[in-house]
């Protein structure tokens, strides 16, 4: 017995009791455990471990890192989606005497996990995935500014993802909502490890994002090919620049807010506690000082994707380029002075509320300008109504409705009536799904052939699109009405007399229709892979405009054999018209060597965070490994290799002839 106690001490708060017991959680946990086991088994049977290690796990190539980001994001999207189906089922049936399928605590954990996962591991994952894939290509660079840092960012993101999913298997997750307001998230009211999982998962992923933000900011500022002045960049790069600028300014605030909350829970400080001289309102301010810019961090690159897609599929120059740039920077600036609109109801004075309300509605102007510019890019164009453009049209409709709801809530007295209601939930889903997710779907469909050599099946893509759009409207229009009916968010139960059930049922049907749409997307992917030989699409399948389309497909690992000469916007479009591509000579190319160190940093930080969550203090020392790795790396002068100009020429020929 004493041995057992000792063991228990060594393992901190961890014990067998922490593994799931109820059937639903066991099923979820089983899945989380099973998926890696299946993957490991497949890799072992097909003898792919070496390949995986050499080509992917140790890679420093942003194109591969981008694909890994997107794979993780898709997997997490499925997890987020299954959360949605549980939430919608619960709310559709948990009326009156029925308590539904989930306990209150379990329901709230799922709601919190859904928000956290969708923002941090799906939206951010898709965003950094696409940025990694596209930005270096569009600016005519062969790499990012700090490739090792870039790989480390990915592995931190990955570790955060693993940690949040571990919470399903060992212990529990936060039930305090996706932003975990204290004092609910303090030890007094949330004594289990749930909130700690939340904190550390976001802390790790957040630091990863911050480093990636710095990296791409510098990449865009410093590594553009000669001739590409800022005002000649593709609009996607401008959007990413704005977004990464926000990352650099906003994510340190998240780090502070999370760390202080962790101090409150683990060290007994009084930052946000009720009592002890803490101030919970300060947390709300800090978290939204990050949280509001975060929305624009996600949506600006999606806007950038739309700029590319609308222009390419209208076969017309982007309308109002200068306006677009100004609009981006207006949004970047304004997004830092609106955070208080997330809590008009906290009792601030009229002058404060009115100021933040007005600043918020001003954002509608540059956003509106962007929308009009896209519309006028289409005007007098030749619209090729393929799925990427369809996603844009759906975005334009949904985002406008959601934006209108947003301006309504920017008026403080109206917000008093809509805050924390399902109206708000409908609003931000219309912005984030309609804006961000639709944008990244458009981007993936658009750029997919560049990296894989074949297009995604158009017909299945359309089925997926229509399911998504119809399901989306079915799922969220009822929530607007429910908000007016006084339904608040995160309710695991409500009384039958309120008459809400029919609308919740409709919303549930909407979620199912979206799930069918997701099913079509997977079918689309599988079908397209099976038919890839019939559907090879060449280097420039859309007759597009920016530099990435000038490269052979798949894109060589060094990107550009010869650096392109840029004199104007839409450089490739111009080059195609004037038949002048590649005027520079071949030159030796220096590229980073693969290294497992980024992965080792990620894993050691993961173990460190897991140890902190469970108070296994000796294990936390593993985190020091990360520091050792960084020092070792700094001593290594042999981190790059060079391909001679001659080799580059030979390789280029092979790539151009499709021999590689």
């Amino acid at each position: 017995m004493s041995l057992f106690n000792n063991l228990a001490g060594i393992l901190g708060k961890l014990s067998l009791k922490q593994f799931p017991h109820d059937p639903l959680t066991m099923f979820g946990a089983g899945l989380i455990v099973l998926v890696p086991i299946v993957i490991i088994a497949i890799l072992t049977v097909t003898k792919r471990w070496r390949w995986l290690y050499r080509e992917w796990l140790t890679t420093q190539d942003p194109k591969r890192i981008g694909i890994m980001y997107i794979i993780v994001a898709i997997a997490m999207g499925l997890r987020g989606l299954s959360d949605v189906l549980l939430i919608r089922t619960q709310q559709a049936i948990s009326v009156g005497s029925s308590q539904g399928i989930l306990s209150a605590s379990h329901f709230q954990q799922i709601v919190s996990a859904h928000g956290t996962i969708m923002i941090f591991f799906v939206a951010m994952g898709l965003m950094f995935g696409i940025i990694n894939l596209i930005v270096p290509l569009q600016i005519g660079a062969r790499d990012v500014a700090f490739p090792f840092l870039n790989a480390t960012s990915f592995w931190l993101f990955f570790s955060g993802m693993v940690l949040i999913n571990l919470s399903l298997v060992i212990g529990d997750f936060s039930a305090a909502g996706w932003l975990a307001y204290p004092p609910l998230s303090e030890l007094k009211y949330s004594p289990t490890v749930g909130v700690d999982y939340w904190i550390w998962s976001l802390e790790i992923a957040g630091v990863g994002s911050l480093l990636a933000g710095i990296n791409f900011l510098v990449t865009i500022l410093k590594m553009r090919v000669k001739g590409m002045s800022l005002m000649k960049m593709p609009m996607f790069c401008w959007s990413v620049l704005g977004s990464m600028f926000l990352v650099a300014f906003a994510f340190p605030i998240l780090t502070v807010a999370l760390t202080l909350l962790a101090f409150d829970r683990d060290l007994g400080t009084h930052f946000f506690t009720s009592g002890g001289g803490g101030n919970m309102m300060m947390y709300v301010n800090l978290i939204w000082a990050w949280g509001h810019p975060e929305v624009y961090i996600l949506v600006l690159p999606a806007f950038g994707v739309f700029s590319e897609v609308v222009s390419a599929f209208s076969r017309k120059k982007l309308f109002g380029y200068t306006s677009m740039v100004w609009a981006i920077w207006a949004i970047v600036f304004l997004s830092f002075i609106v955070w208080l609109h997330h809590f008009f109801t906290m009792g601030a004075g009229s002058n404060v509320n009115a100021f933040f309300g007005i600043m918020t509605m001003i954002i509608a102007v540059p956003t509106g300008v962007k929308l009009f510019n896209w519309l006028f890019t289409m005007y007098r164009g030749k619209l090729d109504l393929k799925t990427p453009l369809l996603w844009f049209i759906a975005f334009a409709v949904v985002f406008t409705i959601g934006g209108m709801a947003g301006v309504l809530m920017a008026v403080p007295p109206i917000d008093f009536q809509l805050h924390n209601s399902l109206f708000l939930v409908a609003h931000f889903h219309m912005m984030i799904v309609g804006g961000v997710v639709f944008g990244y779907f458009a981007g993936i469909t658009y750029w997919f052939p560049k990296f894989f050599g074949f297009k995604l099946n158009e017909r299945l893509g359309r089925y997926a699109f229509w399911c998504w759009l119809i399901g989306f409207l079915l799922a969220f229009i009822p929530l607007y009405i429910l908000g007016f009916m006084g339904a608040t968010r995160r309710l695991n139960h409500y009384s039958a007399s309120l008459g809400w059930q029919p609308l919740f049922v409709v919303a549930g049907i909407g979620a199912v229709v979206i799930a069918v749409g997701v099913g079509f997307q997977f079918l689309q992917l599988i079908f397209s892979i099976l038919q890839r030989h019939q559907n090879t699409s060449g280097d420039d399948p859309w007759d597009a405009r920016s530099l990435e389309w000038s490269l052979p497909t798949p894109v060589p690992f060094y990107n550009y054999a010869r650096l392109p000469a840029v004199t104007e916007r839409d450089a490739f479009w111009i080059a195609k018209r004037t038949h002048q591509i590649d005027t520079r000579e071949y030159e030796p190319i220096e590229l980073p060597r693969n290294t497992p160190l980024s992965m080792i940093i990620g894993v050691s930080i993961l173990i460190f965070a897991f140890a902190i969550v469970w108070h296994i203090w000796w294990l936390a020392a593993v985190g020091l490994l990360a520091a050792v790795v960084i020092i070792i790396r700094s001593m290594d002068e042999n981190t790059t290799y060079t391909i001679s100009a001659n080799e580059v020429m030979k390789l280029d020929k092979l790539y151009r002839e499709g021999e590689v």
Partner: protein
Amino acid sequence: MTKIRKKLVLSLFIVIVLIISGDYLSRVSIPVLEPKGVIADQEFRLLIIITLIMLIVVVPVFFLLAFIVWRYRDDNNHRGKYTPDWDHSRLIEGIWWGIPTLLIIVVAIITWKATYALNPYKPIASQNPTITIQVVSMDWKWLFIYPKQHIATINYIEFPVNYPVHFYITSDAPMNSFWLPQLSGQIYAMAGMQTQLYLMANVKGTFIGRSANISGIGFAGMQFSAVAVNANTFKSWVRRTSDSPETLSLSEYKKLQKPSLYVPVRFFSRPVVGLFNAVINQYMTPESQAIKL
């Protein structure tokens, strides 16, 4: 033929959906859109005005989008002009920087005025005296104290119609949000702090209020009824409640502090004097961490 049939089926479907939803919406209460108090009423009007102003931009956007997609789609009967290099126009861009800016200025002026007019801390002018109610959000119920009437209730309030009601709100639990949508917007309830809210019902009736901010597993059950009645009915209710055998002593309050779910309505007579301030003060200094009176 089939095309026409398809269209017929589709329009029939739409009509049926419209009828069903119209019928549903006419039978269910939509508190935010059916205000029964002066504050909620003004908030509702504001909502309508701002919506209408925004439609000035939104409706043209939808028409423009539909028109452009229809006219410039690239199929066999493509008729629109094609100008691949036309990429800016000072005039047109000026219009869509300018008109939305003007609209936002209008909305901003309305917002500025409305935010002051509808400040929840602002007293409501009335020839009737103001009723004061102290609100404590607890795990997981609402405690209401009527300091002048010397009564207290759980998850239930009553007040006379056309009398301003002044709420002082705090929390002895995680953050909650006090929301009575048919009478006024919400405000947070936070431990160690006090927020305020004025409202006034101008119609008799029973209205549902709830917490709008997640506060733990009993959050969904934090629902209360607010009943607006005649002044006389209110008086007799106060009298009846004053006779309640249950009194809200300090020890009774400590029992209430224990978490409980879906708590039924309760009535207390003679709440201990100064309870509300003591609840706030317990978070302010170490000496008073236990409630002291």
